[in-house]
């Protein structure tokens, strides 16, 4: 309040600097974790272990990417985790035989992939329609969608798991290109592309502008509704892709696929510096958040701590990260 009319001071310069540094804020934390991992387990630094970390993180990374785009634009999407389940379930159901819980339609597997992605598109469009056009509350809409889509997933297969999926359908999730799992390549490609667009393309900047102040964005000539709608579509599309990769890796679709993933998604995004208030945060930071959680999981797994403790650890990490951010970063944004 009282400092708001201070002229350009060292304080402001420091604020600006801090904003730019925030993308790298997790680097020391990650370095520390790597040191801890390396000292507690010899296997930790092996390339094979890192490929495991990256592959396990790739699904989460795609979801965090999707959620970050929505969060930066100032909205919310909880339904992503259910799309991770429903999209490949629908695709898998269409190609599978009735004997294993499928539809018996034996759809062409390539077509099934298209259907999987189309479902993501449709879910996103529906979310966008309700939230952007009908101006319903994003939290409630996507929470309802989370429940609804999960319910449909269970309903289609009566809760069974679809396995024996055709190799074409599981290819992207299981293939290895140049000794690195394809899902890592795909994830890196999307993250790199999105990072670039968010930083240098007008649509990326428009997302930041809308999340920062939608009214001002409109005044600057941004088609706020159109862009917000598109963000929901892109996010759900990415979620369906993540679902496809996940079932490809597992070679099956369970009715619970993706369940509870949204919490980790938010955690990684927030730890990575994506603001829940919109308009702030970088995808590089979000990726760092994903890596941090991936490394923590890996260390806990390697040290054979019961996996039941992983959730508690995540919760603690999120809290600690927030407390650190407040102590280091000072006050909340003023507007």
């Amino acid at each position: 309040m009282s400092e708001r009319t201070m002229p350009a001071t060292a304080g402001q310069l420091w604020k600006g600097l801090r904003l730019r540094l925030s993308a790298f804020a997790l680097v020391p934390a990650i370095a520390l974790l790597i040191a801890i991992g390396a000292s507690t387990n010899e296997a930790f630094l092996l390339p094979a272990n890192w490929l495991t970390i990256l592959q396990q993180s790739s699904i989460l990374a795609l979801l965090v990417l999707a959620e970050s785009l929505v969060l930066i634009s100032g909205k919310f999407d909880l339904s992503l985790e259910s799309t991770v389940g429903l999209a490949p379930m629908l695709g898998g159901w269409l190609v599978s035989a009735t004997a294993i819980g499928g539809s018996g339609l034996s759809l062409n597997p390539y077509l099934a992939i298209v259907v999987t992605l189309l479902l993501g598109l449709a879910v996103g469009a529906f979310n966008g329609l309700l939230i952007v056009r009908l101006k319903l509350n994003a939290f409630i809409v996507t929470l309802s969608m989370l429940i609804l889509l999960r319910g449909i997933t269970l309903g289609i297969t009566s809760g069974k798991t679809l396995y024996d999926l055709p190799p074409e359908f599981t290819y992207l999730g299981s293939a290895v290109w140049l000794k690195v799992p394809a899902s890592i390549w795909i994830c890196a490609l999307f993250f790199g592309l999105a990072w670039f667009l968010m930083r240098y393309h007008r649509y990326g900047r428009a997302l930041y502008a809308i999340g920062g102040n939608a009214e001002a964005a409109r005044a600057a000539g941004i088609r706020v509704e159109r862009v917000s709608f598109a963000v929901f579509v892109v996010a759900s599309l990415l979620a369906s892709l993540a679902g496809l990769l996940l079932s490809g890796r597992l070679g099956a679709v369970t009715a619970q696929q993706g369940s509870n993933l949204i919490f980790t998604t938010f955690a990684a995004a927030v730890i990575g510096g994506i603001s829940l208030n919109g308009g702030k945060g970088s995808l590089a930071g979000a990726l760092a958040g994903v890596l941090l959680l991936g490394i923590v999981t890996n260390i806990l797994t390697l040290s054979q701590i019961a996996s039941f403790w992983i959730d508690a650890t995540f919760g603690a990490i999120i809290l600690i990260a927030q407390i650190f951010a407040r102590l280091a970063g000072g006050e909340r944004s003023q507007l």
Partner: protein
Amino acid sequence: MTAPALTATPVSPAPLPSAPVTPAAPIVRGANLSKAFGATPALRDLSVEVRAGEIRALVGRNGAGKSTLVSLLTGMLEPDSGAIQFSGEPAPAPRARELWQSKVACVYQHPKIIPTLSCAENLFLSQTMRTRKLLSWRKMRREARALLERWGLQVDVDTPAGALGVAERQLLEIARAMIQGSRLLILDEPTAKLNAKEIERLFVKMAALRSMGVGILFISHHLDEIFDIADSVTVLRDGRKVLDGLIHGLDRAELIDAMVGPTSTPTLRSTAATTTHTMTTAHMTSARMTTAATSDRSHSAVRLDIRHLSCQGLFEDVSFKVKARECVGLAGLTGSGKEAIGEVLAGLKDFDSGTICLDEVELPGGDVAKHNRAGIGFVPEDRHREGLVLDLSVAENATMTIAGRLGRFGFIHPQTLASVSTRLIDRLGIKISTPDQPVSTLSGGNQQKVVLARALARDPRALVLINPTSGVDVASKAALFASIREVASQGAAVLIISDELEELELCDRVLVIRSHRLTREFLPPFAARDLIAEMEAKMQRGVAA
């Protein structure tokens, strides 16, 4: 960011094309504009024009149609009838935002910046959105740096715009608005949140723009400012134009008459007692009572006694007393620490050393509830942020500080709420249709009265107000002043922390705080010039563009 988008639109518009043909078409001309919202006419057959190199003040009480006119001139709304021309050419199509932006630039009352983005990005956001090319950060920063330098804005282009002060944010907005190359600039109450020095700096910029041939439509509630900077004035009342002419040769009385209307016999405020036609009989009486009270004030007891009060970085060793029935002004530039004193008195902030005594009882500091119960009423600086919960009703807002008294065990008794709030609403003459009406539906003046009602709900023994009449129309100002004087006349100690001369001139004495310390006391009648000089002494004056 394309090269042409930036370079083809100079910061300062080039001089007028060729020597002005006489008479040059005005930069903007709105002819016979009418606009109604449902059955309510907002503008009726209004014509207005702004010429190159003219600063035209647009004046009117809240609800007179100023905002509607601005919306029409910026293409945000379409007139029901009438036409708008820019330099003799018809206005762009309603949806062609880009074309509108090249014709008219507007800096709104509420900032239209993106607080999370850097200054550089805010400046060039429209350009970024139009180009198909990728954004060149380096180039954008460079151009932004040059631009800010030309506007005398000493901030780092990478600073998030939300971190800027009000005055800088405004200059950023003006700079951004002018990038589009428009020759008409609309400033909607730009001075409302600025201190005297910042206003002076803004006026220097406005004068510079005027000399470059830009036409400015300037909206303000401050008549002094209008006489200071404007060349001509258009007065609106009830959606009609009631006065249009050059400032030169016009006096304040005429201007106020035009704003307030013919039914009234406004008395210009020449003495401490402000009266206008809108004041109720109660107000009039109180004004008279005040004068009577002045004589025994010298004998009345000290209510508020502040000794050696310090608050790290905000103010140092501040001591003063306010007696019962006394109205003391506290003046200072923004950043002088004057607001902080108010916030400390209200209990919003804790202090480091010194004492605050109210009727010889020491207050703890840093505890709003305790200060409030001890008898301090507080009107905060920003009514939208700290004063009101906009979606709650007038009744709930007015009684918020005394919710505990409205029923037992924390339950609020509806009838008690209704009767208590009605009493407060009547006392302050708040114009509403029902006490259940959300505060957000009220005009600025009436909202501020609700804030005052809230402060008065507990019958405070000391009333502390920060800029109590900022951003409200002249009539509401008068009513608010009268209410404040009435509170004082009933025995309260009143402290008005303000940078508005109109408010300070009403006080029994005015203390000046400069660079965190009290420096001088003024007793009326004092010259406004001296007061401002004291506030600004040793401070750097506004720098020319």
